[in-house]
């Protein structure tokens, strides 16, 4: 195997966004040693991300397909679209953590550096055209988020969250590796596109070992996107981790997990669609059920949102199960919308946290509309959107995935989704009811900052605009994926 012929320095060009992010992370790490004002580091992190966005935008046409390093790393519309989700996710996370990390007394430069590294990991995952690269990206993301979850070293909850996340994460990545190893053993390659060709040319689509490999891969990705029964970490980790990280984790790794799930299942194992969708159907039903039902009994809003995030993974899965390009489009569309509404909801949760006030209990939301009408109104928008009430974006997201399930002939799946969607309304609207119909127990002082205002403005505007003009996003997704 001749490496020399395959590589040249020009190959590095498509990697510019990732390199930018990594370099930003490294610079932040070093600056942390000398700079006292951590806000400066955060701002630099945002600037670095913007440079990376610019790189993604300018590099090639948005949906032009390129692959480098012996086709191990692909740059296409699919990857680019996911990268945009990750960029916005990390920027929003930084915006909502400014004041918060200070209150938690965890305002350290590493925090921002690790956010950069984790985002890079996700970007590599989205671009991975080879299972090796996929594994590396996944680990880069996972290792960074393990640390982020345990960032508040003095708090037992945070310790425990990191511990659980780490152990279960490592456990699941062993499954991923085993799946990769079996795939490699059967096909002799790790390249995702080549696997597809070999699966059909070697006619191993019905091979039991091949099925086992796919099962293991689904298990590992299912862990990242918190599919039941691989979701057990999610509630504990979401509750224990710093809230800004919970927000980050509830979107980034989930989206990255869907990115690789979509790419691997659609590209590598497209021929085995009947097999993997038959596995995903019960998983998706379970996920929606467990997420929506257990969320009802929660009293901690972070935990409730964790279960809600589990339930949403179930809805997003509907598009994947459909197995069509339109299905994939609807899932990706949902992910983008989900990011905005979820980040918005977490932003409000973070605003409630102030010196000496945890603000994580549902009870704390009682009478918020009287003490802080603006915040309550925004929370109402996000809760409506998470429930899926028009004209918010959440409705659009749900509408399309459910429509795709119907188009794919999974009528019962669509009905299940609607039923659990209605059930989920109970716990989302309970927050609204607490805010608007109860009297405040104590005056909640919100922790405001300009960056928080920006994050809230962006998420609210997007939730409403995408609810009214859904085709803008949908066309973007479509043009990205069909390329």
């Amino acid at each position, binding site marked *: 195997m001749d490496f020399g012929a395959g590589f040249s320095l020009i190959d590095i060009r498509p990697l510019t966004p990732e390199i930018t992010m990594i370099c930003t992370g490294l610079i932040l790490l070093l600056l942390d040693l000398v700079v006292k004002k951590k806000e400066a580091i955060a701002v630099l992190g945002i600037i670095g991300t913007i440079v990376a966005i610019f790189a993604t935008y300018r590099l090639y046409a948005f949906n032009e397909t390129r692959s480098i390093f012996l086709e191990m790393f692909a740059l296409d519309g699919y990857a680019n679209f996911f990268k945009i989700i990750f960029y916005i996710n990390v920027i929003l996370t930084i915006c909502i953590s400014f004041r918060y990390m200070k209150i938690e007394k965890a305002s350290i430069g590493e925090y921002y550096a690790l956010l950069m590294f984790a985002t890079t990991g996700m970007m590599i995952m989205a671009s991975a055209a080879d299972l090796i690269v996929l594994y590396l990206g996944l*680990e880069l993301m996972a290792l960074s988020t393990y640390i982020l979850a345990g960032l508040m070293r003095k708090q037992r909850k945070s310790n425990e969250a990191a511990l659980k996340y780490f152990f279960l994460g490592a456990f699941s990545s062993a499954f991923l*590796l085993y799946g990769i190893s079996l795939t490699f053993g059967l096909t002799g390659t790790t390249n995702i596109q080549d696997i597809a060709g070999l699966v059909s040319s070697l006619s191993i689509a019905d091979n039991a070992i091949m099925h086992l490999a796919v099962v293991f891969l689904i298990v590992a990705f299912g862990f990242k996107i918190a599919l039941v029964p691989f979701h057990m970490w999610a509630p504990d980790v979401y509750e224990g981790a710093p809230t800004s990280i919970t927000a980050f984790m509830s979107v980034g790794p989930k989206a990255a997990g869907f990115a690789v799930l979509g790419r691997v299942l659609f590209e590598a194992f497209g021929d085995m669609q009947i097999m993997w969708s038959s596995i995903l159907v019960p998983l998706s039903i379970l996920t929606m059920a467990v997420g929506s039902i257990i969320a009802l009994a929660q009293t901690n809003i972070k935990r409730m949102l964790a279960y809600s995030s589990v339930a949403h993974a179930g809805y997003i899965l509907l598009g994947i199960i459909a197995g069509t390009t339109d299905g994939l489009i609807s899932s990706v569309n949902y992910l983008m919308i989900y990011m905005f509404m979820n980040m918005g909801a977490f932003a409000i949760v973070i605003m409630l946290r102030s010196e000496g006030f945890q603000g994580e209990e549902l009870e704390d939301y009682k009478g918020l509309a009287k003490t802080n009408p603006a915040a309550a109104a925004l929370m109402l928008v996000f809760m409506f959107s998470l429930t899926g009430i028009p004209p918010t974006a959440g409705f659009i997201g749900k509408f399309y995935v459910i429509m795709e399930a119907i188009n794919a002939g999974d009528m019962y799946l669509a009905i299940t989704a609607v039923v659990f969607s209605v059930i989920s309304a109970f716990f989302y609207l309970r927050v609204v009811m607490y805010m608007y119909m109860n009297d405040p127990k104590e005056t909640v002082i919100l922790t405001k900052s300009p960056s928080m205002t920006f994050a809230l403005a962006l998420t609210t505007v997007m939730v409403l605009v995408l609810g009214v003009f859904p085709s803008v996003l949908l066309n973007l997704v479509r043009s990205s994926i069909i390329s």
Partner: protein
Amino acid sequence: MLVPLSWYIILSAVIFSIGVFGFLARRNLIIMFISIELMLNSVNISLAAFSHYLQVMRGQILVFFVITVAAAEAAIGLAILIAYYKNNPTIKVDEINLLKG
């Protein structure tokens, strides 16, 4: 002394299963951690065996990466354990359930 591929794969599967069992059955975090390492290394065995059998380098490349990632994972895992241990004087997994429900 011919060792067929299937032996390697069976060895790998057995070690992987031992790892899974260890992770599930043991109550000491360090042992659980070692079990995970066992699982990773079982994969390494199968990857190396496949790679040699198929005469494709990719498997071995992945082995390299797995080893390094496992090292990084070990470092982070230990760091998390130490941070945990500083606040909670136990590494018995049965005593860790502050977060539940």
